[in-house]
């Protein structure tokens, strides 16, 4: 079996996460909305415990965590959920960046269809958007700014601290898609100016199918979101449906470990990175995105003279990598992220993304080098 180097697509579950999930599937299977007996009460206790564990990662309050099916749903709720507030207040200007995930860009397209004006900020060749461009773009009728924390393809950390200063005195909602950085880069998301944070369980060694929208309260009020679905009133009326207690408890466990083991995990990823960089540099690989701001578990490179699709196929028995985000790789469309960073189409065609974690075993890099050199002929 090839060694899995696609952790930005999804991560393996921590053993203790799997154990918690199984517990709430097999033994403690009560419905958290039925606290009329111990089964339901314990399920509710587990949900509230997980809510606290997730909140702790970003120093939010427990009542600011809305459980969803994952970051895609959270992004949709954060963006489309503000439509009514924008229409009622007459604020119809929205800002985002060119390197956002489709789960942000497509809700913005929908907002455009609803009559909102969408402004998309460009990014620089280092993979980061320019905060000054954001400052210039803000208007009196801006409703929402949505910026990702870490890009899923390049692994580049975005300048959120600078954004916080820029929007500090503006009456706008600020949403951060933190699917790739939550639980990994801790400090940024603790900034109290960030109103809305989208997260996913399966990017932090938790289960798939669960995530959260963290919505910080102001004067004890949630941002003026409207639910996208109706029927049940769960999650403070914002996300109806029976809570998947097993997934939520698993997400809580993953969040707990993300804080507890943060330094140790990053250290292991940095050690792995040194080996990966050494091997790929020997092949003349060019890193996409500046190393200074790239998280230690991601490496996006263009390999001169080697087509990425051929490389991925040739390497499939040694390492499992991808050429773009999991959500677009099946469509074989060129990366909009690398294109926005100004890469020539040829360089985009030569790009591969490697992403690992603290549980990734050692790779035989000599074998990888040999395969890639053979491809180059």
């Amino acid at each position, binding site marked *: 079996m090839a060694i899995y180097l696609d952790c930005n697509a999804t991560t393996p579950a921590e053993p203790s996460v799997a154990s918690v999930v199984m517990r709430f599937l097999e033994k403690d299977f009560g419905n958290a909305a039925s606290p009329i007996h*111990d089964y339901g*009460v314990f399920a509710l*206790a*587990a949900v509230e*415990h997980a809510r606290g564990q997730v909140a702790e990662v970003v120093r939010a*309050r*427990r*009542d600011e965590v809305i459980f969803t099916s994952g970051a895609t749903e959270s992004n949709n709720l954060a963006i489309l959920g503000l439509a009514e507030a924008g229409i009622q207040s007459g604020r119809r200007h929205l800002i985002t960046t060119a390197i956002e995930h489709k789960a942000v860009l497509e809700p913005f397209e929908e907002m455009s269809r609803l009559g909102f004006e969408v402004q998309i900020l460009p990014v620089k060749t280092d993979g980061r958007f320019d905060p000054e461009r954001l400052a210039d773009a803000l208007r009196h009728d801006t409703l929402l700014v949505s910026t990702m924390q870490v890009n899923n393809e390049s692994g580049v950390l975005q300048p959120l601290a600078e954004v916080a200063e820029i929007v500090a005195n503006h009456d706008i909602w600020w949403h951060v898609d933190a699917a790739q950085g939550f639980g990994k880069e801790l400090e940024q998301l603790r900034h109290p100016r960030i109103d809305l944070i989208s997260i996913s369980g399966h990017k932090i060694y938790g289960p798939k199918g669960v995530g959260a929208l963290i919505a910080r309260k102001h004067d004890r009020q949630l941002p003026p979101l409207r639910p996208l679905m109706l029927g049940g009133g769960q999650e403070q009326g914002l996300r109806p449906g029976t809570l998947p207690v097993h997934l939520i408890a698993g997400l809580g466990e993953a969040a707990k470990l993300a804080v507890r083991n943060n330094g140790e995990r990053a250290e292991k990823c940095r050690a792995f990175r040194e080996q990966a960089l050494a091997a790929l540099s020997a092949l003349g690989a060019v890193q996409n995105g500046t190393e200074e701001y790239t998280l230690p578990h991601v490496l996006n490179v263009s390999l001169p003279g080697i087509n990425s699709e051929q490389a991925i196929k040739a390497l499939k028995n040694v390492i499992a990598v991808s050429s773009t985000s999991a959500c677009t790789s099946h469509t074989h469309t060129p990366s909009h992220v690398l294109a926005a960073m100004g890469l020539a189409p040829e360089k985009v065609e030569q790009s591969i993304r490697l992403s690992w974690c603290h549980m990734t075993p050692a790779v035989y890099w000599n074998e990888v080098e040999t395969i890639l050199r053979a491809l180059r002929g």
Partner: protein
Amino acid sequence: MNDIFRELEEVTVEQYDHYDLPKWLADPVLVVARNPDAYRGKEYLIEILVAQVREYDVYAEAGCCKWAYDHEDIKRTLRWLEE
């Protein structure tokens, strides 16, 4: 494994000494915290208990929403620990 029990003891003493946790509730929690061997395998419940003691609020049930833990929550978790 003993870290979570140590944390339970610390947070319970803190809440009893400086906040509103009553003695009748602190005492049985401290019995659990100081007997880790008796509760081996029940660490998940101990974690819940830590959170409940840390966020203990006499008036948790007051108001429209319950976003703190009260004595009923802690008593219930203590009962689950004995089952």
